[in-house]
């Protein structure tokens, strides 16, 4: 689900009083999906740019959660088809795991 807004759309958005939204989102910020299936995150490694977002979707019939190893973000329990989105404002590598099934691991590389 790319959130690319063409220049004209951004101008329109600002004109419509959505300036905050437009400025807080770097140009070409995109959203990348990580799917949880069969007790695994896919893809295991997600590479994004600063300002992009990652959306986790639980495709299993039991719940999972997404917790950064360094504690910088965590979700509540995600039931089947629940989603959670995190944004990443700094470059670096963040490892994460499922809080219920910590053998499920993944990482996000922010470039």
């Amino acid at each position, binding site marked *: 689900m790319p959130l690319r807004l063409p220049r004209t759309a951004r101008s329109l958005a600002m004109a419509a009083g959505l300036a905050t939204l437009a400025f807080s989102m770097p140009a070409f910020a995109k959203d990348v999906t990580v799917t949880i299936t069969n007790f695994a995150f896919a893809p295991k490694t997600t590479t994004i740019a600063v300002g992009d977002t990652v959306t986790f979707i639980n495709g299993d019939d039991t719940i999972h959660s997404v917790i950064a190893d360094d504690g910088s973000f965590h979700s509540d*329990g995600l039931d089947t088809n629940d989603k959670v989105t995190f944004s990443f404002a700094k470059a670096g590598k963040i490892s*994460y795991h499922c809080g219920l099934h910590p053998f499920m691991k993944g990482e996000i590389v922010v470039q």
Partner: protein
Amino acid sequence: MTDNSEAEPRKLSRRHALECMVWAGTGVIWTLSGGIPKSLNLLDEAQAAEAASSNFTFLQISDSHIGFDKEANITAVDTLNEAIGRINGLAVKPDFMIHTGDITHLSKPDEFDDADQIIGSTRIVTHYVPGEHDMVDAGQGKAYMDRYGKDTWGQGWYSFDQNGVHFIGLVNVVNLKAGGLGNLGPEQLDWLQKDLANRPSSQPIVVFAHIPLWTIYPQWGWGTEDSAQALALLQRFGSVTVLNGHIHQIIQKVEGNMTFHTARSTAFPQPSPGSAPAPGPMIVPAEQLKGLLGLTSVNYVVGQRDLAITDSTL
């Protein structure tokens, strides 16, 4: 399915000496001894007679997962109701119950409310420990602690005595680390050491916690990282019974004076270790489901080292 009842010997007397069993489908060898579970109905006359001759009896219920509504059992509330109906129908009421966690599926207030209402209908005192499913609210365990955390230490652990038996409820589902298993943590281990310090080795001990306190299948997180430290503290006691949930099936072993036993869920079965790609809810034909859900009853008789553990299905 891989039927765990294969691991339950039939017609074995409770005083039966050491038995070696190969657990079907895994090649794991467990050593079993006294306190062998028997496939009796809870209302079975023999069980009632046994309960009557015991000093006291308690029941273990586990993994009720209130809120679970997927294909493996779309009515976790109904199967808990059915289990509680069995308990309410018992001729000899247990002295108390323990719930070994995953009371709810998503830690939601209405799930805790439903569980409280159904389990509360027994009017039997129930001692809880949390499962990881009871810790997934925005407060990461606040909902559980607000409800069940009174008179507990740390993140919900505690102990109490009943007829000379010392019961210890441990919490191994908080703040699980990436790649790790269940975890007790140094603060709880320190508390356990102090809790046991002045007790005579002759006092029978029952330890209960959600995730098994011995390593069953680390690939699926079925074990507790630092359980060896807890078990070392329990080593000197003549009778130690360790009761867990989490894996939704009966697995047991005996090691020295310690008997380990995991209970069935009242909500849905899970695959035997390594028998499926992942440990998710196991979908079985509707007519088989209730044979895989159940309760555990434990009788204690003064002077007998082993507590008699009886598992029954719904």
